[in-house]
């Protein structure tokens, strides 16, 4: 029997397929297309303490095999999420990972304590809660989006430390591919007691509108995702896996079962699918099955067998 079970730290997943933050909302749009119980997990849209309206102007540009986005962390805010969205998410039998964004240490601190409190309250009520927090220190699309944390290890350390102090929920740090020193970041996460690392967030990129002679995006730069970045993301996940003993959740351009196994082979504990959901909204319904099939074909019995073989 081919098994897809896997763990990210203490978190057990049905399979390694997690839906990436910002591409899956809180699950509801996709729940209309297929049962979300087939997923390993869902990472929510990045949430901040206060609601945010996001960026103005063009938010999406397609590139060769890539997608640039400048959403700018539009989200309904943590209170709204905790009050209205979390219960609905808890109906899906899949791991719930709350992606926490922010622009300042205070905001991260506040957000983390809101999550910690909500989890405690729910536990007391005997309700399912938050399976993991994914700390996003790498959103490139807002001035106060955490990107400045994501570039510098010591700046990031402050954010990780403060959140770690506040919550005992499993904590995963989402790294930016734009970081000056990626393996230094990973080492820092380990030192600061994080439970896992996820990468990559989007690559800082640019698109020009020839007619107006301006950037296509009001924030000048935007984040690049999708198959275009896969080879770079895979290299980064490999580098980070070899430099840390923390479990790593890999992502960047994954769209096929082959992609999933490649990330596992370079050492990822699980993977996330972002832009792939836009190419085929039913990716989550079929990918785990396709991974099983491919494993059978390649005579791979379990993910452990191949994890980190390269």
């Amino acid at each position, binding site marked *: 029997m081919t098994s897809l079970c896997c763990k990210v730290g203490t978190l057990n997943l049905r399979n390694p397929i997690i839906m990436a933050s910002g591409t899956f*909302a809180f699950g509801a*749009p*996709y729940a209309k297309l297929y049962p979300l119980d087939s997923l390993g997990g869902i990472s929510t849209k990045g949430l901040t303490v206060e609601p945010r309206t996001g960026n103005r102007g*063009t938010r999406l540009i397609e590139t060769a*095999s890539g*997608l640039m986005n400048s*959403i700018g962390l*539009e989200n309904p805010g943590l209170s709204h999420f905790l009050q209205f969205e979390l219960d609905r998410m808890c109906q899906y039998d899949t791991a719930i990972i709350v992606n926490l964004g922010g622009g300042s240490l205070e905001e991260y601190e506040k957000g983390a304590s809101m999550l910690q409190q909500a989890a405690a309250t729910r536990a007391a009520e005997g309700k399912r809660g938050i399976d993991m927090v994914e700390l996003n220190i790498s959103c490139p699309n807002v001035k106060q989006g955490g990107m400045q944390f994501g570039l510098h290890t010591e700046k990031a350390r402050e954010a990780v430390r403060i959140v770690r102090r506040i919550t005992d929920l499993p904590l995963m740090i989402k790294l930016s591919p734009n970081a000056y020193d990626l393996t230094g970041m990973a080492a820092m996460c380990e030192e600061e007691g994080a439970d896992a690392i996820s990468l990559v967030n989007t690559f800082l990129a640019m698109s020009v509108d020839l007619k107006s002679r301006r950037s296509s995006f009001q924030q000048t730069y935007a984040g690049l995702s999708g198959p275009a970045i896969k080879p770079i993301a895979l290299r980064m996940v490999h580098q980070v896996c070899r430099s840390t003993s923390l479990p790593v959740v890999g992502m960047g351009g994954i769209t096929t079962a082959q992609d999933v196994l490649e990330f596992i082979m370079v050492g990822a504990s699980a993977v996330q699918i972002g832009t792939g959901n*836009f190419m085929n909204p039913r990716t989550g319904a079929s990918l785990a099955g396709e991974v099983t099939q491919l494993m059978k074909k390649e005579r791979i019995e379990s993910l452990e067998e191949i994890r980190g073989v390269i």
Partner: protein
Amino acid sequence: MQAVVVNNEPLMEGIYRLTLEGRHGGKAGQFYMLRCWDSFPLLSRPISIHDLSEDSITFLYRVHGGGTELLSKLLPGNSLTLEGPYGNGFPSPQGRTALVGGGMGIAPLLLAAKEMPEADVYLGYSGEAFAESSFRSIRSSGGLTIISGGTILDSLEPHRYDTIMTCGPVPMMEELARRCAGSGASLYVSVEKRMACGIGACNGCAVETPSGIKKACVDGPVFPVEEVNFHDLALL
């Protein structure tokens, strides 16, 4: 969902009518996300429902860039992928109703004209007319105005209507909004935004409204004019 092409005929240079087999859901003003390629380009393309029957669905589109170019190469018997119907669609008509289309914006109005047999239809083309015969066949007894090579707006008297629904170039819709202001007619505008998911998951299709950011793909593409910021719309 996969569907088989019945027909993909050029109506004029760069304008195609694509008919697919099967019974598909939807109402006027809603759209489907179409793709007939594997992974390049990345995203599916939002295209409005032009017509629906018991056993077919029809789209009317202009070749704009790479994606619609690939659509234009489809042959009868080929299959393509469509997801939908998405979006809110046009509201039910209240009182005397006009449908005003400009250029490619006439696409969603054929089904609308069928669903609202009482509505007057105004079609404006900057150049030669296309697909107008489909409209003629369902408005054979009148209620159809067509202008080629000019502006349709001069033919329309907003105060004669309670409800006006429009789809077309932003400047045309903006001018229509100006003319409707104070006329008593409620104007509904169908907007276009770049879309990645089409289902409310990516926040890519944000529309600025006085009541906050909305999503063109689920809250729209049809909005009451009060919600529409034409300046924001002009930036695709």
